């Protein structure tokens, strides 16, 4: 067999694989949207679920919870993840200690989410006495997103050309100022990618939330914005089911007659939500990157 032919065959194989991956994705999304899109209407997005007897209603609280939980989780994950990543890339000296941190991060990132959920139940739900709550859920999700975030930030920072760092330091600029002015802006696109990956896990996670944020949502009053009030959607200490948890719950234990319809609608809504979120995060990130740097 000659080299040219081998090359041809290899090229065709790679195209086939790429095509296969794309079609799996297309079929999956197409199927979910086909099943669910027609369920989504204004009521579905703005109303709470109907009673067990009547069915109907919507998923407004779950939709809100998904996004609110994302915000809470990111409030915890981003500062710690950034700090950890900066430490690992800029300050950690090679040695036993750093190796141990690295190992711990790897172990942490390979924990099954159900285990993180049970850990969260013990620590953030029972020990703290908060009960099932958004905050417990956000903490559990942070535990499982942190390793990802730290690793992505570390890689993004390490990929910043050393010449740029040296140029800044050689101008009599401190290490910290160099990190803020040169390294972080240059690492921003990588950091945004990490942020989006972590967000995707928050949207999609159910197992870790069952035992921490709970499976129910109290009746919410969307005109009440006082975070300490139990009916306020902003209260971080109230239980909350997210869209993903709602889908799981409806499919596994609901007895309402239109369960499958609601599940299909929720799935489609979740996918649309994630898509919109990813695209806008990327867009915002790029806009911000352009502002910070000058790469027209």
């Amino acid at each position, binding site marked *: 067999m000659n080299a040219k032919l081998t090359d041809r065959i290899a090229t065709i194989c790679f195209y086939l694989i790429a095509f296969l991956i794309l079609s799996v994705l297309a079929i999956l999304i197409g199927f979910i949207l086909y099943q669910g899109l027609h369920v989504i209407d204004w009521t579905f997005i703005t109303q709470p679920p109907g009673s067990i007897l009547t069915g109907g209603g919507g998923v407004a609280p779950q939709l809100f919870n998904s996004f609110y939980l994302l915000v809470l989780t990111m409030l915890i994950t981003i500062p710690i993840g950034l700090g950890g990543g900066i430490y690992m890339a800029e300050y950690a*000296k*090679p040695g036993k200690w750093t190796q141990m941190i690295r190992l711990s991060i790897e172990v942490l990132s390979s924990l099954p989410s159900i285990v993180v959920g049970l850990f969260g139940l013990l620590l953030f739900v029972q020990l703290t006495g908060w009960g099932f709550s958004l905050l417990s859920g956000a903490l559990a999700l942070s535990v499982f997103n942190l390793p990802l975030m730290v690793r992505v930030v570390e890689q993004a920072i390490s990929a910043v*050309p050393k*010449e*740029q760092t*040296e*140029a*800044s*330091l*050689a*101008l*009599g*600029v*401190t290490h910290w*100022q160099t990190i803020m*002015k*040169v390294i972080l*802006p*240059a690492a921003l696109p990588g950091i945004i990618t990490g942020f989006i990956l972590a967000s995707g896990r928050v949207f999609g996670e159910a197992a870790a939330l069952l035992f921490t944020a709970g499976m129910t949502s109290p009746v919410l009053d969307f005109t009440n914005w006082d975070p300490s009030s139990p009916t306020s959607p902003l209260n971080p200490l109230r239980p909350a089911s997210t869209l993903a948890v709602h889908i799981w719950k409806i499919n596994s234990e609901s007895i309402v007659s239109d369960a499958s319809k609601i599940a299909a609608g929720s799935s489609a809504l979740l996918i649309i939500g994630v898509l919109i979120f990813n695209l806008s995060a990327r867009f915002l990130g790029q806009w911000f990157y352009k502002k910070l*740097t*000058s*790469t*027209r």
Partner: protein
Amino acid sequence: MTAKIEVHDFNLFYGKNQALHDLNFQLNEREVTAFIGPSGCGKSTFLRSINRMNDLIPNVKVRGQIKIDQQNVYDPHQDLVELRKHVGMVFQQPNPFPLSIYDNVVYGPRIHGISKKAELNEIVERTLKQANLWDEVKDRLDAPALGLSGGQQQRLVIARVLAIQPDIILMDEPASALDPISTERLEELIIQLKESYTIVIVTHNMQQAQRISDQTAFFLNGYVVEFAQTQRLFQQPTQQKTAEYIAGQFG
């Protein structure tokens, strides 16, 4: 002629490898000193020892002293940030930040506390003129610096160094990426800058060393084989190795 930089028994090790051996010489204020020598002989290493950029490399050890204005830069109390404000460095590869031309020049001054627009504008115009770049970029100061040609980038980073008003400028083969015309301009610039700055330049170009420098140090395998007035070193080298090197017999 006052000595600006005095080097006493200076040695540097990368881990177990000794890269510089017992260096002893003086660099004079408001003069250009050229470092020549074959690749890998320690010119960059020594240059980076003056502003302590080698501190960034793990496992670097030094012995001996480098004094700037009688002050040992390896003193444990030496403030590295202050040191580097006084000792500017132009790297071998032009390394502008991914910012606009304007923001590159004012990067240092801004961080060091200058915020008045008028003052920053003045710095940009003055340093870009000094670096012979003003006429080419004055209409597009907001354009990205990475869009400039290699030679323009090199002059931009020189302006960026001038903007922090150092007294010493270290240049590591600043002309290696430049075409002949840019090189000539750079040499004119260095001769102008000599009036107010002490300049150390690494170069592989013997003609260049003779055109711009007052003193020359010939490095070989981590030793300074010969250090003398440039004219003297090139016309009557006292060391066999120097004579061979400038005759182009090795390196």
